[in-house]
């Protein structure tokens, strides 16, 4: 019995390497035929992101020639009604506009639906029958990609049901099976470990793709290019030259109708534990020996392993939290967190979190990494700012007072690019110096708009390229890093919530954390 977790194809694609017409062609086409199953197919993520992403991959000629798509969810509906819903979703949310014939009809003919509960093994057997039918009809060769876009509470149940219905990789006679799991992977360290145990019973780690859509964003991928495709940054990328690193993921939106979920989560678990810590790993890791997924993930794991645990008695000094009250966003009044739907009027859930981490290794010893994320802040703004130390000796007298520390900023959203802040002489007779900014912007630099992260990530999973997905050891390290903070915060319920206005820079306690170090946050 063959067990194939799906090794990545060669650059040309394994199935096409013998096709002499492929030489030199610039194509992103996925070589392996495959079926993709979306669990939670009636949900918002499937409609807004996943199906439009699949359709755009088709328009971009990235999907393999032979593919099939199945939705699986509790709601009862026919293939036709599911297709109609998906067309409406594409028409509404796709970046390429309305779905049109003949391509839509061709795409829709590959789309089907199976209804059932996630613990209903019979429904999973029906799913297996549909997948086998697709293999025969569409030539999908037994390759299967399962996408869990469901609430996290049913991840383990779905994996169990897959195994019980003979849909696990170990039951396959041909082809590969992979599973994409949405975040959060667990709700704390213990539940993450328990989920990993369940997933691991059915899927080998190489077949598990933990998705963090942040990692699919073009500027995040460019962090590695910036660091390892240029010679000028790496020599100064260390404690000798770097004063501090600030990583910001700020949103203007509130909980967007997800109050129930957010009450159980909060900013620390929702953003810092995954998105923001992943960014930290990319900035802090050592150069990998190759772009191979495991080589990169090995280095990320090592960087996260060097994160100094925040001790319980240090939580007050090294962290800050906040919750937004009513305020103004873009001049319009918005409600406070406690007034949001499905939120406890006395909620102590944090909507803002910041943490000062240290990385205990030779490169980063004593360099603070300030991480912050919050909702209903002044602007939607994500960036990594590396601030360098001051010059060792000032030769410019009074003008020297205006000399700023150099800063390198990797802008993630909404702007995507890199900027460098350096000092220059103002033209004139006197030596006046001031800071200037040199910007690189993806949109104008290359004249292309980055594809949405989900398109890139789904295509990568179909190719078997796990580089942009998070490996279990890194997830575990990230949970270990935030667990002491979670515990301390849950013991010491904050009494001053809400403590920042919607539309502001965040709570004063966060400012105080940096002021104590003689620094300040970059403005959001």
């Amino acid at each position: 019995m063959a067990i194939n977790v799906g090794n990545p194809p060669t650059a040309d694609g394994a199935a096409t390497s013998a096709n002499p017409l492929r030489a030199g062609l610039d194509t992103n086409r996925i070589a392996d035929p495959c079926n993709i199953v979306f669990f939670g197919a009636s949900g918002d993520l499937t409609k807004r992101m996943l199906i439009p992403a699949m359709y755009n991959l088709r328009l971009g000629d990235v999907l393999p020639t032979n593919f099939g798509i199945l939705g699986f969810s509790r709601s009862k509906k026919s293939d036709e009604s599911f297709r109609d819903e998906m067309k409406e979703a594409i028409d509404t949310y796709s970046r390429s506009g309305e779905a049109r014939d003949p391509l839509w009809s061709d795409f829709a003919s590959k789309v089907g639906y199976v209804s059932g509960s996630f613990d209903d093994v019979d429904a999973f057997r029906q799913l297996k029958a549909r997948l086998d039918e697709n293999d025969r009809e569409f030539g999908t060769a037994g390759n299967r990609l399962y996408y869990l876009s469901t609430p996290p509470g049913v991840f383990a149940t779905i994996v169990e049901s897959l195994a019980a219905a003979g849909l696990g990789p170990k039951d396959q006679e041909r082809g590969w099976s992979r599973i994409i799991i949405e975040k959060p992977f667990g709700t704390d360290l213990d539940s993450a470990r328990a989920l990993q145990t369940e997933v691991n019973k059915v899927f080998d780690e190489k077949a598990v793709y933990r998705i963090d859509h942040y990692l699919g964003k073009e500027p995040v991928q460019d962090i590695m290019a910036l660091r390892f495709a240029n010679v000028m940054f790496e020599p100064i990328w260390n404690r000798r030259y770097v004063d501090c690193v600030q990583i910001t993921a700020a949103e203007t939106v509130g909980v967007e109708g997800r109050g129930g979920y957010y009450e159980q989560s909060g900013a620390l678990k929702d953003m810092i534990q995954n998105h923001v810590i992943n960014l930290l790993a990319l900035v802090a890791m050592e150069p990998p020996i190759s772009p191979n997924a495991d080589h990169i993930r090995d280095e990320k794991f090592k960087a996260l392993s060097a994160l100094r645990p925040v001790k319980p008695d240090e939580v007050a000094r090294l962290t800050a939290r906040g919750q937004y009250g009513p305020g103004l966003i873009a001049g319009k009044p918005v409600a406070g967190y406690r007034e949001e739907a499905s939120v406890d009027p006395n909620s102590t859930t944090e909507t803002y979190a910041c943490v000062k981490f240290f990385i205990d290794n030779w490169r980063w010893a004593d360099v603070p990494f300030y991480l912050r994320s919050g909702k209903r802040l002044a602007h939607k703004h994500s960036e990594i700012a590396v601030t360098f130390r001051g010059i060792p000796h000032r030769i410019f007298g009074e003008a020297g007072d205006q000399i700023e520390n150099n800063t390198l900023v990797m802008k993630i959203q909404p702007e995507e690019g890199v900027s460098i802040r350096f000092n220059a002489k103002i033209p004139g007779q006197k030596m006046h110096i001031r800071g200037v900014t040199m910007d690189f912007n993806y949109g104008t630099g290359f004249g292309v708009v980055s594809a949405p992260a989900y398109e890139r990530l789904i295509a990568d999973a179909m190719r078997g390229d796990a580089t942009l997905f998070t490996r279990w050891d890194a997830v575990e390290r990230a949970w270990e890093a935030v667990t002491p903070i979670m515990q301390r915060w849950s013991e010491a319920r904050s009494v001053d919530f809400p403590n920042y206005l919607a539309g502001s820079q965040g709570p004063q306690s966060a400012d105080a954390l940096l002021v104590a170090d003689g620094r300040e946050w970059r403005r959001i």
Partner: protein
Amino acid sequence: MDANVTAGHIDAVDDTKAILEQLQRSRLASAVDRTHAAASAATMNFLVFVDDPNHRSWVLERAARVAAKHPSRLIVLDSTSSISGVDVTASASTSGGAVAISERVDVGVATIGHAAIISLTQELSIPEVPTVLWWTGGRLLQSRTFSGLAQGATTVLVDSSGKVRGDEAIRELGEFVTRFPKIALADLAFMRLAPWQNMIAQFFDDPALREDLFSLTGLEITSGSDAEALYLGGWLGSRLSWEIAHRDAFRDRSGHTIPFERVAEGDQRRVRRVCLRAGESAYCATLSDDDPNVVELSVTGPKAQPMRYAPLGNIENTSLIERAIVETTRDRIFDTSLLTVRELLG
């Protein structure tokens, strides 16, 4: 993005000192009132030669769009008699908080000789950065201006499906590749074919169908202009190591003759249909009547498959020009395709 444009005019095209001084003045003036310090970093000299008044605005619009994305010194050599003297423009544009300054010099060259054009271009070019020549003129190697400018360029971009066309243009490009092996040559006519090459390759990604690729018995290409059909044929021939039997046929490695039929139909610069035959099997990619951006892919005969549809993914000309600029090395696939076509044409 907003732009602050400052312009000046010099009457004498040979007064390079005055042109460069005006360029300096325009650059400084365009940066005035900007809140950010202006950073101007030219990544290339972008030379554009145009001699067709009907084509002029199309060319200049695309050149300006490329130059706006890639900070460059754009030097337009305008042989259409639309301008006399030299127009100098510097524009500062703000995008994402950054200020970039683009420089442009439009020179009326209709009345000056090739030696003067080449000399002027050299003096106006920024040293130490690559020079890209986009030649839209009616002659290639027969033009001493083209030869002279091309020899100073790192990349030369032409369109053998544009003003220069016909067998002679392809022969000249083949000659160019042989004579100037260090200069990267790009032909928009070939670059436009990438989606069609993908379509054809797609048929044979399936290992079960691939053997037919090595026993093709006929090739038929329908297009609105010659260059597309010739290039696709040349590409297939070079990829499959075919030899030339005569002007309308290849010979495969087993010595079998493969007739190459070219049908003129449809819009200029557009391929309408490609059909490959292998015995009783036919692999055809045909533009859909319902949507000109969709191709119907059919496999008929013993290995028949259901009709499939694929997005054509036509690439806009500006993007092709941009791609040619970014690729600074020779395209081996293009070179071998071109040389195959040249041999086919005899």
